């Protein structure tokens, strides 16, 4: 229990030290706001920031869902045809290693709708861990079990459904946990590049806007919300992972 409390205690101490240092050295809030000023900004700007948070979360989660659908589907296709895997996998790698900040401007030029462009950017970064982990998982099935399936004349579909997909589940879930964080990062980075404003703006634009207006506490408040969203996604996917893998008797932390 004390071990679980350790990060909380440390966090509180750091926040207290931070606030105290600012007061002692009289640092103005437009250089570095303290936790109290940030909390005040969070409360005062809550309607605006909350709308932006929902916008960013919607894009990240939708991108994650599409990444799961596309990643698993493509992984299953790869598992059916080694030739297809050889042909397509290098391009999936290229998609992965090219920095999203470098591709985002192009996508924003090609796609008229900003939310759709953001969605595509977030999808690109979230897609690869799902694909590569699921491919690895589908190929990780126990070779003896595969022989057993062959011996009993299993069809391709039976082997996929009863052996390879269940074998891939732990790998897929580990990939999903990574992809969840990446989808959020992708959505935020793309919005920074887009710099789009208006009613449908996400948290990244609020950070840019607050920076231009020198409302530094609001900037930090938006940043804190992005972190909180990332932690929430990570924790939620971790919970899904533990529940789904209870039968395996291993919790992969």
């Amino acid at each position, binding site marked *: 229990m004390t071990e679980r409390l350790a990060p909380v205690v440390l966090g509180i101490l750091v926040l207290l030290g931070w606030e105290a240092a600012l007061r002692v050295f009289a640092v103005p809030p437009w250089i570095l706001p303290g936790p109290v000023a940030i909390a005040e900004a969070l409360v005062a700007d809550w309607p605006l920031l909350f709308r932006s948070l929902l916008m960013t979360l919607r894009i990240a989660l939708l991108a994650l869902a599409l990444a799961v659908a596309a990643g698993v589907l493509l992984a299953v296709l790869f598992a059916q045809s080694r030739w297809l895997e050889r042909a397509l996998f290098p391009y999936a790698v290229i998609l992965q290693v090219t920095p999203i900040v470098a591709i985002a401007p192009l996508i924003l030029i090609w796609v008229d709708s900003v939310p759709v462009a953001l969605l595509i950017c977030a999808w690109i970064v979230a897609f690869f861990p799902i694909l590569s982990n699921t491919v690895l998982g589908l190929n990780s099935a*126990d070779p*003896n*079990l595969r*022989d*057993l*399936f*062959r*011996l*009993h*004349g*299993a069809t391709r579909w*039976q082997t996929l459904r*009863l*052996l390879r997909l*269940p074998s891939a*589940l732990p790998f897929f879930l580990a990939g999903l946990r990574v992809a969840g964080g990446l989808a959020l990062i992708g959505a935020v980075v793309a919005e920074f590049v887009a710099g789009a404003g208006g009613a449908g703006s996400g948290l990244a634009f609020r950070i840019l806007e607050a920076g231009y207006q020198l409302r530094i506490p609001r900037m930090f408040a938006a940043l804190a919300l992005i972190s909180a969203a990332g932690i929430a996604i990570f924790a939620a996917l971790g919970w899904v992972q533990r529940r789904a893998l209870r*039968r*395996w*008797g291993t919790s992969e932390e």
Partner: protein
Amino acid sequence: MTLLRLSGIGHRFPNGVEALAGVSLAVARGELLCLLGASGCGKSTLLRIAAGLVAPTEGAVEWPEGRPREIGFVFQDPTLMPWARALENVALPLRLAGLARAEREARAEAALAALGLRGFERALPRELSGGMRMRVSIARALVTEPDLLLMDEPFAALDEVARMRLNDEILALKGARGVSVLFVTHSLLESAYLADRLVVLAPRPGRVAAELRFDAVPRGPGFRATPGFATRLAEATAALEAAS
């Protein structure tokens, strides 16, 4: 009545290693044939060839009475699906054959009961001991009521007591069901106890070094303490020493 005949089986792996050379042997209906040999003498490969999982580079696998509808295979490890309960694991071959759920579950329950696992139908593999997992694995191999059971060092990882008990159960199941068994092992004790006939393989490349036919005597827990067993063991040991 020959169920399975291997004629002049030779096998070379893609990396050039010659695993088997000119192995010929036959399994009679209702017989338990032990393949005894040191590690790396191609025993497992021979078993996989018999199952049709590996095509030999030389020789032929023949089924004089036709290939049995069902062959059971027991691996060295229990090879269970970790996400599936004991009942689902045992019912797997029936599921692959397209049987309805009610029938496959009834037959899987009966197979588990025959291996002394009544009450463990809902257990996950990780909740079972090594010996119990191996029983589940054997139940899965027997659930289709196969004519031939291929066993690849199935008890190598078990302790001596569990192994002796399972050896007795294999003999009982064989007696009750008339199933033929091709049993691969590197254990002298096990082969001397189980075998109706014993084929000793010499290593690198695997080839038949000796064949021993034992008297058909009833075996049971007391048999290991009899002079008859001591004679069998001595013969098997001498044959294995001569082969390696």
